[in-house]
């Protein structure tokens, strides 16, 4: 699949084309235009800084959905050693929209679980576009319990538009599968670090998201409903998704400011897909720091702190306070 061109990147692409044209011209006609080229490259640098340094929420959504955006398996390959994928929920099947397994991180045995999208149509059909069925969540839970038994920290990569909405998912208990992960994750006696790497769509994302630390890549999103869904409900028009993306506060910088996540992992300029190795390195650093903080904490303390972390989320007023304020 060709690399997607995002509309706001057009000026950058145009300038890049111009520079390569000039370079080709220089080579062909043997005329020295290096002065010109240098100037244009400086301008390009500035332009990239301006555009990528001031992304609006909708532009970040587009980067989060970029067809070349690295997936869970891209990061696993680069961050961990000795990865062995483990399959199946032991109840129904092996959901390809969630991958999981055991590996080493800086020598430490860990369990890794993540949503898995495809990058082309064929892979997306196999992976159900990264939208898990109940058996996917039950596989994830099985691997978490296994990690708990063998005292391995758990690392979750979150990257889904949402849990699969379909007849079979309802019949097999999509609600129960998600809910079960929420309650069980809250009681895990090993460290859990979660990173949103693409889209974090609602309950389907949260089902891998009850962790001691929650991070987001700079251009990832986390939301209770997709911008399109919100726009359809709010203004009866899904084409107003851009506006909804701004209203809903779904980007990493917004959620960091609201205190809903623990940190933001900086992205390579222009998005993680520009340099996957570098991005993997950034993620590894964040993981390393978190695990150093968390490994060794008493299991009881870990569970208690995790409960307090979520218990503290929420903004509440009291009628009496309002009367006093008046």
């Amino acid at each position, binding site marked *: 699949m060709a690399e997607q061109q995002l509309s706001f990147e057009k000026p950058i692409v145009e300038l890049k084309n111009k520079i390569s044209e000039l370079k080709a011209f220089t080579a062909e006609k043997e005329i020295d235009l290096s002065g010109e080229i240098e100037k244009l490259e400086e301008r390009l640098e500035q332009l990239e800084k301006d555009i990528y340094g001031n992304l609006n929420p909708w532009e970040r959504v587009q980067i989060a959905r970029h067809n070349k955006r690295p997936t869970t398996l891209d990061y696993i390959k680069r961050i961990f050693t000795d990865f062995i994928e483990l399959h199946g929920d032991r109840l129904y099947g092996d959901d390809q929209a969630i991958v999981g397994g055991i590996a080493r991180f800086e020598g430490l045995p860990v369990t890794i679980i993540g949503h898995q999208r495809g990058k082309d149509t064929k892979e997306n059909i196999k992976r159900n576009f990264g939208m898990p069925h109940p058996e996917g969540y039950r596989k994830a839970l099985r691997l978490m319990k296994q990690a708990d038994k063998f005292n391995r920290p758990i690392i979750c990569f979150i990257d889904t538009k949402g849990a699969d909405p379909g007849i079979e998912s309802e019949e097999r208990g999509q609600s129960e599968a998600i*809910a079960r992960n929420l309650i069980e994750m*809250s009681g895990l006696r090993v460290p859990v670090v979660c990173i949103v790497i693409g889209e974090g769509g609602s*309950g389907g994302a*949260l089902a891998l998201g009850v962790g001691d630390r929650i991070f987001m890549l700079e251009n990832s999103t986390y939301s209770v409903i997709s911008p399109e869904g919100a726009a359809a409900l709010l203004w009866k028009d899904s084409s107003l998704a851009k506006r909804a993306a701004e209203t809903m506060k779904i980007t990493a910088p917004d959620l960091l400011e*609201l205190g809903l996540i623990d940190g933001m992992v900086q992205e390579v300029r222009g998005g993680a897909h520009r340099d996957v190795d570098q991005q993997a390195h950034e993620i590894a650093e964040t993981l390393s720091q978190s695990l150093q903080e968390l490994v060794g904490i008493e299991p009881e303390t870990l569970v208690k702190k995790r*409960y307090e972390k979520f218990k503290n989320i929420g*903004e509440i*007023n009291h*009628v009496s306070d309002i009367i006093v304020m008046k």
Partner: protein
Amino acid sequence: MIRDLFSKKKKYATIPSEEAKQEVPEGLMTKCPKCKTIMYTKELRKINMVCNSCGHHHSLTAYERINLTLDENSFEEFEKDMIAMDPLEFPSYLEKSKIDREKTKLNEAIVTGTGTISGYPTVIGVMDARFRMGSMGSVVGEKIAIAIERAIETNKPFILFSASGGARMQEGVFSLMQMAKTSAALNQLHEKGLLFISVMTHPTTGGVSASFASLGDINLAEPGALIGFAGRRIIEQTIRQKLPDDFQTAEFLLEHGQLDKVVSRNEMRSTLGKMLQLHYPQVNGREGYLNG
């Protein structure tokens, strides 16, 4: 003709007013959405809002449910004065909440507290779908978590009647995280060995269905209640076909192994009473038995 003088022929046309146009006068009469039978609301209330011709369960308000479920005068409410904030500065959210407060005389979409059923003490939460469609924002999540904490402190079981469209959009990720908060609180209850009975009423969908409502030691539902994760329209759009009428009903869930029992409203109180009795005393039931 002389007869014309006495006839009551109308000299002008009458146009029914907007109110008169309604099939059923608001409040006085209630029309059953299922069998279309019209009943006096007063009469319907006497039979707990269950249609006497087809058995359809009309929605109850939170306090109606509490009165119907708990022993008389046993209810003590928790955290009654909590109201929503607007952390995202979401357009018209505060105004809409205020309108719902005035309309329902409730401060939020859930009422929590403690009381007894057949003499057995319990902590209880009841959602009310009239308030922002019963959606869960920070207040609903917090009230549930606090209720669970009180159950733990006082060694009581917890019963929750859900009626909710899911997580509240206007509080964004704050709402989403209430799913984790309520579930984590239930985990503490679980660790303490205390009973949680989830009763799903119409409707229990989305983020509420996918968190505490599905996590009962015993999951019950009222007949005909809509229960499910994804909205019907979204599923139909995804699969491009119409869904059967009984899809995502309590009976559908029972058939697919997602519920312990469908309990009609008239039997709910006695069923809950029996279940509480079977789980009391919470801590030393077995010891009591063994020690004779």
